[in-house]
């Protein structure tokens, strides 16, 4: 086992601790933290696969860590997006010091989570992550944010508890907690069915899958932009990643066709519901947040497609179809973080985020606007972008399963996505739209670096659409 893994987890936590202990060092330490963690994830991404037991105890007894293609990619994604968002936050003077402590804690927790191959350990990391994330939402201390954080806290705890319940059932059934071992022993039985159900529901609540999404637009819409970006791009991915592990690995023999159809339905409704809300939203950040609800629908559909009993595994290249789902996560993470950060730039500059009044600000912040546009392109699955490839993959698999209605829904949802993205761009380009408020608000200058960060994130989403090959090493 490489020490890089431990350092990857401990580094952000250490930096966070430093900040907690010496608040005066916040800025330099934060920079050190974000660069270090980002680079470490790149290093780890290039490590070979492996499974290790912590503390030298053989796996069923000790806690397992593992590095495979999926976790590596998740780590990289978290590292890159996390680093860029952190840079943005670094330039955002409005964020309090405690942001760094909490965010770095969440970052460390995510890294630990992706490495963990032990359901109980995962639970613990999930707790750390959830706790930090909830606090991040409320960090602005606005009344709405606190209320949203409260709701998020309850949902998050509920989700964790349900997960823990499943862990207990797993332990009760097989007497161990190691994912790899569980996966080999798994057989359908009533307790296992139940475990799958409660864990899935719990994680879905944390991922904000329709109809358990209601906390998300509040939390993500009201949190500071950097936090929203982190939550939407990364945090919900962590719980979705677990869902993916459970469905496709731990409980792989259990999901039935009926469940798959059910999940498709949920995803489809999520897509339409989220799009509907996003289209009707009068404010920018809630709109972007609603878009997350919709996009989670894609993730869930993707999961359903993969869990479909007929899905061939291992066709084409190394690990088969699962790449698409990862790709989808990556596309969404890049695009959504860019969008949220862009929204943050606009909101801070204008002092509000009423879409119809943002025209002036958007025209001034050209880079931000452009980034918002191309992030929207990736989100809507228009080429060239990672989102396009991901959507291609979804459609292809949908057609493979001959789920025509699903394919139609996905295409329509893609168009709806374009609809709400371009609604914003329309405002930017419309010179005749008069603001509701007569007196022009003073525009607050934004650090130039923040515009660049947004642009880089969005461009990464585009570039990723051009070269997906390194992912599977083909």
């Amino acid at each position, binding site marked *: 086992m490489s020490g890089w893994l431990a350092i990857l987890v401990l580094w952000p936590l250490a930096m966070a601790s430093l900040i907690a202990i010496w608040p005066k060092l916040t800025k330099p330490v934060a920079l050190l933290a974000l660069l270090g963690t980002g680079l470490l994830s790149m290093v780890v991404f290039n490590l070979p696969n492996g499974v290790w037991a912590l503390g030298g105890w053989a796996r069923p007894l000790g806690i397992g860590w593992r590095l495979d293609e999926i976790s590596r990619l998740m780590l990289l994604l978290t590292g890159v997006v996390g680093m860029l968002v952190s840079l943005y936050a670094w330039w955002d003077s409005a964020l309090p010091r405690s942001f760094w402590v909490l965010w770095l804690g969440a970052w460390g927790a995510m890294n630990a989570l992706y490495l963990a191959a032990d359901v109980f350990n995962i639970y613990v990391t999930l707790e750390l992550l959830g706790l930090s994330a909830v606090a991040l939402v409320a960090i602005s201390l606005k009344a709405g944010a606190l209320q949203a954080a409260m709701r998020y806290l309850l949902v998050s705890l509920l989700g964790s508890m349900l997960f823990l319940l499943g862990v207990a059932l797993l332990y009760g059934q097989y007497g161990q907690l190691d994912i790899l071992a569980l996966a080999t022993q798994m057989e359908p039985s009533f307790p296992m069915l139940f475990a799958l159900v409660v864990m899935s529901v719990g994680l879905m609540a944390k991922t904000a899958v329709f109809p358990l999404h209601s906390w998300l637009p509040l939390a993500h819409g009201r949190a500071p932009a950097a936090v929203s970006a982190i939550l939407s791009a990364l945090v919900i991915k962590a719980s979705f990643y677990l869902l993916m592990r459970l469905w496709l690995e731990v409980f792989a023999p259990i999901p039935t066709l009926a469940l798959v159809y059910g999940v498709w339905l949920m995803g489809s409704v999520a897509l339409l519901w989220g799009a509907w809300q996003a289209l009707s939203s009068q404010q920018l950040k809630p709109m972007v947040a609603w878009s997350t609800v919709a996009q989670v629908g894609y993730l869930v559909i993707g999961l359903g497609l993969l869990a479909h009993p007929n899905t061939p595994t291992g066709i084409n290249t190394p690990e088969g179809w699962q*790449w698409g789902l990862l790709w989808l996560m990556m596309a969404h993470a890049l695009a959504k973080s860019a969008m949220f950060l862009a929204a943050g730039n606009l909101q801070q500059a204008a002092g509000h985020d009423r879409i119809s009044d943002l025209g002036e600000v958007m025209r001034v912040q050209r880079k931000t606007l452009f980034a918002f546009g191309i992030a929207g392109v990736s989100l809507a699955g*228009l080429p060239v972008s990672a989102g396009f490839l991901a959507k*291609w993959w979804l459609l292809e698999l949908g*057609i493979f399963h001959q789920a025509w209605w699903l394919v139609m829904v996905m295409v329509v949802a893609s168009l709806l996505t374009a609809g709400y993205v371009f609604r914003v761009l329309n405002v930017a380009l419309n010179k005749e739209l008069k603001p509701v408020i007569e007196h022009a608000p003073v525009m607050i200058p934004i650090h130039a670096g923040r515009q660049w960060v947004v642009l880089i994130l969005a461009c990464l989403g585009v570039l990723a659409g051009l070269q997906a090959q390194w992912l599977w090493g*083909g």
Partner: protein
Amino acid sequence: MIDNSLWPLLIIASSLVPAILIFFIPENSRFLRSAVNIGGALIKLQLVVLLVLGIYAGEVYELSWQLLPGLDFRLQIDGLAVMFLLLSAFLWLLTTIYAIGYLENSPNRARFFGFFTLCVSATAGVAMAGNLFTFVVFYELLTLATWPLVVHRGTEKAIAAGRVYLRYTLIGGGALLFGTVLLHSFAGTPSFEPGGYLSAIDLPSWVLWSVFVLLMAGLGVKAALVPFHSWLPQAMVAPAPVSALLHAVAVVKAGAFGIVRVMFEVYGIEYADALGMAFVLLVLASLTIVYGSVRALYQTDIKKRLAFSTVSQVSYVALGIALAGPMGAIGGLIHIAHQGLMKITLFMTAGNFAETLGVHKINQLNGIGQRMPWTTMAFTLAALGMIGLPPMVGFLSKWYLGIGAWEVGAYWVMAVLFASSLLNAAYFLPMIYRAWFLPAPAEWPNERRLSPHCETHWMLLVPPLVTAFTVVALGLVAGFALGTLGWVQWLVEQEFVQ
């Protein structure tokens, strides 16, 4: 010498890099921007000309890499591509000059020229796309790059038009994507090849037909086939260079070009004919041709009339392809270039009228020939070409289409051509008449002195004159091997030889 596989990238970069540069050039550095603009256009033209020679010498230019398992991103330059490339590079240069003259005093130039240039990259990509997937990528990219141009003026009307444009093109793009994925999951996405690749695979007929319907719906939107055409006349609120480029090269041609690719190099025209698809397309194209012309007749706005004329004229390409014979194919393919040249002339001259004199309506054209003889002459030549009079290039298209129709025994298509030409005459000749024969008004709606010597700014005047000259010259020397006709004949030989 550069590796052949780098050429496609060079071609794209030659407009992509300027585009990115332009985005970052400050609004007021007029000279720098113009230099980058024109420099890029010149380099691209130069590259394409070299390519033409290379292709003629039998060189192969391809570049591909795997994007997803079983899915390649593939660029390849064949004769068809290079024709479209040459057209776009040539017209881009002219339109850029024109656009500089047209827009250099208006706001948001960096944005405009950036997207304008980006749009050409996308067009180059469409031309060079080596398989259906790559084609879809660039096709959609084109939508995205052109949208900011359509709404450039930022008026409510422009925004509304942009909305309609997006609605149509994105939904069309969705259909196209669906069709492409559908086809991919049944037949994979091999590269385009003359004669098509589907005839070799035994696919169920419902797949073939659904794919066909989806692809045609997707391509038909951009190619403005009835009933997917409504966006086009609305998109006329865009600045004149945009209309010119949109209607002549970029958007509608991308659609038409896609139809060519699909019919020739995915299905294979003989296979499509045997399946009955060619006939469906033929009927659709015929309907569009007649419908567009009829609607054009009723327009009072110059640009709107031209737009409906585009609806009608672009379908000549589809018509030629759908005739499923070599002669028809020649007619369709040369019309890609010919319609481009003629329509861009018309739009640029219309833009000159609007920009110099504030003339937007047809009944304001009276006597404009005396005030702006050069512009009006260019307009006249292009309009006569549209009608199909020799020696303008329009005649060549119509000639080969007619021969193609007769060749395959589709006599009713002759009637369509006849009706279309008649209608073309009916809506273009009155304009010409007004321009030259009626007395000029005492005062123009909004006259501006753009140049002390010329009738208008030289940057506005030269491009349409050059294209008008090309319209005549290419028609006159049609037999020349490197002319459009010669080139297309060479292409069609390849297509129909096996």
